[in-house]
């Protein structure tokens, strides 16, 4: 075989090898939209959603929802979602009925309140803030709900 012939043979082998390897290793949906597997999009889209909005909670917890969203007197917590304090509820309705979810009443109410209302210099000035330690402590050692009885519709204790 001539020199050119051998060169061409090598080139041909390379091309064939490339085709075989590409066929054997490339996933079927690769390069449908781009350099990735399009099949993964389907998986991403079908992932389960967990966090539910308060409109879903309303179906069972009517009173709490009304307190939270009340306008007269205006509830300072009206923009909150239930999950902000009660944890993320994974409600999976079966035939329209939610049988169980992961939400709970915060075990330490004061700690839960202090997530948002702890006095910090980095917070916006119009945010109601208190501190439980030091000179200006706001009733240290007491639970918030002793005075602020309705946490869904909080008002300043007078």
């Amino acid at each position, binding site marked *: 075989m*001539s020199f*050119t*012939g051998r060169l*061409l043979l090598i*080139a*041909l082998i390379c*091309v064939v090898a490339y*085709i075989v390897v*590409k*066929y054997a290793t490339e*996933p079927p*949906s*690769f*390069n*449908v*939209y*781009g*350099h*990735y*597997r*399009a*099949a*993964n*999009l*389907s*998986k*991403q*889209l*079908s*992932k*389960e*959603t*967990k*966090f539910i*909005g308060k409109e879903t909670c309303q179906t069972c917890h009517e009173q709490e929802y009304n307190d939270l969203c009340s306008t007269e007197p205006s509830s300072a*917590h009206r*923009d*909150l*979602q239930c*999950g*902000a304090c009660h*944890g*993320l509820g994974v409600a999976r309705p079966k035939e329209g009925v939610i049988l169980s979810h992961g939400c709970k009443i915060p075990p330490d109410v004061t700690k839960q309140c*202090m*997530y*948002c209302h*702890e*006095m*910090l*210099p*980095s*917070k*916006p000035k119009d*945010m109601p803030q208190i*501190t439980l330690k*030091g000179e200006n402590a706001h009733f240290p050692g007491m639970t918030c709900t002793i005075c602020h009885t309705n946490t869904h519709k909080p008002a300043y204790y007078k």
Partner: protein
Amino acid sequence: MKRRDFIKATGTVTLAAGVYLTVLKPSPVNAKEEKDWLNGYDWNKHYWGFGIDSTKCIGCGSCVRACKEENDVPKDPYHFRCWVERYAHLKGEEKPKVDSPNGGYNSFPDKYKKEEVLKAFFVPKLCNQCAVPPCVQVCPVGATYQTKDGVVLVDNDYCIGCRYCISACPFGARYMNDEAGCADKCTWCYHRITKGLEPACVLACPVGARIFGDLKDENSEINKFIEEHKIITLKPDLGCEAKVAYVGIDSEVR
């Protein structure tokens, strides 16, 4: 080279190229296929945008807690899709102090009690879904990609865990999910937004510091937010075109 050889060579190359193009050419996307992969969602109609109003953030960590639950992020203090940083300028110091204890998961302790704070603010961070994403560029296997509606996703099953993308990200938005054995990152809750829901962090925020919406929809919240405020994005000098629009942050924020 003789003429005969030349013709032979040309013929072989043409044949090989023909075989390659006819057999291996990526099949054109037809409507049926697109619908199959996207479960009926039309990604050409949307282009998602995110805004953060730092002046409203109270650092409560609701977003961090909600994100970790929604997206099964490991609950240790090292892995975050969404986290909050605190910047504090103290009197007598040139540079701001930055901290993020457990990513803000349990809110922030008041650790600057004894110092005089000149200026302080919270900066919620998440993936910027860059328009020119460096993480996608470096992935050697094509396990991370950009969707047409502007979100960068990770193909968990196809990722080989080489961590190139983690070191390539200028914002530290990626992490190694050791439980799943792959790189992971914030997807703006792609599984939620494609169903018409808001991302978990946006829903959880008690003060409305996070704004999410469709940039292709003229009346969306995010378009209003961008029109009404003077916004900046992080690290514009890198040219990766980060998309999260920030309001009320200093130039120290990177």
